[in-house]
């Protein structure tokens, strides 16, 4: 087999087979092929090889496109939308200065609803309830203590007066007071006194200013801790008017 004397044409034979050359070059190579047996042989092989391009399954275009990253313009747009939304919130509440660090600080200062502790509000509310309950407990226990201190033994108490001392809010579960049904009186017994003394609480208006002030002073000095436990040996029975809350 003779050697090709125009290797530059031989190099271009694949492009000639693909008809990917300009017209001038195509014509020159065609002329060369009439004289060069080797190049003609190469061209025959090239045509055969080109015909045997393996069949392939065309990939799923939609799936590929869906997996592609967003274009730079789309990324910028998404970033602008996010910043613009934050700026709108900040502008309405603070200043118009475009400072993302400030926005971030603001976001940290006001956590999103999902980050707020749900127990905080309940804790505050619960604390208020306990404060009210503790105050009423102190008042009731203190009032009973004052009566005991003033009159020694009390064997009969007007239920209406007890309710008045309680503030009339139905806090009937205070440990120092038991309110059975059909009870007519409240009997307070103290072992220090020989005989019971019946005391009617009546209305707070029955007390003088000095007595009321004295009661308040004693309440202030009262140790609230003892109000949570029943007085030893002081059974309290409440007459009708009470009930289970």
């Amino acid at each position, binding site marked *: 087999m003779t050697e090709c004397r125009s290797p530059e044409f031989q*190099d271009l034979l694949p492009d000639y087979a*693909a008809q990917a050359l*300009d017209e001038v070059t195509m014509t020159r190579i065609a002329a060369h092929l009439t004289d060069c047996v080797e190049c003609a042989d190469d061209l025959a092989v*090239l045509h*055969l*090889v080109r015909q045997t391009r393996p069949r*392939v399954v065309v990939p799923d275009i939609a799936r590929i496109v869906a997996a592609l990253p967003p*274009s730079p313009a789309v990324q910028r747009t998404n970033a602008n939308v996010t910043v613009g939304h934050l700026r709108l919130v900040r502008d309405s509440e603070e200043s118009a200065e475009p400072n993302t660090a400030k926005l971030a600080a603001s976001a940290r200062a006001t956590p999103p609803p999902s980050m707020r502790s749900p127990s905080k509000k309940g804790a505050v509310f619960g604390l208020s309830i306990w404060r009210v309950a503790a105050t009423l407990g102190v008042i009731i226990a203190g009032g009973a203590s004052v009566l005991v201190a003033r009159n020694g033994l009390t064997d009969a108490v007007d239920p209406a007066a007890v309710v008045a001392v309680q503030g009339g809010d139905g806090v009937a579960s205070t440990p120092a007071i038991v309110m059975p049904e059909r009870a007519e009186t409240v009997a307070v017994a103290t072992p220090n006194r020989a005989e019971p003394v019946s005391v009617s609480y009546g209305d707070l208006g029955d007390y003088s200013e000095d007595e009321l002030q004295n009661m308040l002073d004693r309440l202030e000095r009262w140790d609230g801790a003892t109000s949570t436990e029943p007085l030893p040996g002081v059974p309290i029975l409440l007459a009708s008017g009470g009930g289970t809350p």
Partner: protein
Amino acid sequence: MIDATQQEDAQTDGLLIDQWKAGDQRAATAIVERHAEALARFAGRLGVTDDVDELVQDTFIRAFSAIESFRADSSLRTWLFTIERRLVIDRRRAQARRGHDIELDDMHAASGFDALDTMVADEAGQRVAAAMARLTRMQRDVFTLRVQEGRSYKEIAEILGSTEGAARVHYHNAMRAVKEFLHD
């Protein structure tokens, strides 16, 4: 010397890339449609028989993620071939680390290329496939890129990480070997 077809292809690709950068998602679809089949075919030439779809998809994802680094001094398809070939090499190295017997030496014939026999229907085609299966991996890659994909020696050198001169030598050696096999 190369006709205007490749220049038009390059201009079209460049225009589509610019449109995609500007936010036109349809341009991405057009780019994928233009090159997906060639990438799948090139994957077969590289001996890939499994998960070709996934390989082509990974190639596009990597290309679009690094589109800013694409320079128009080479064609987009050449750039995509380069990425795909690197992905194939990475896969083979990963498989080799897992203990699979995978050929990594370019100087040895590729048994994976035998898979082409099943994709070529007629007898002549099977003889060509058998002839190409005898080539070294580098010869086969150069030959297929040059003949079936129409890449220039410069582009082949870029895809394969070689030189134009080496690509030209590999091409002529491959042509000689194929002719000898076919004429026997």
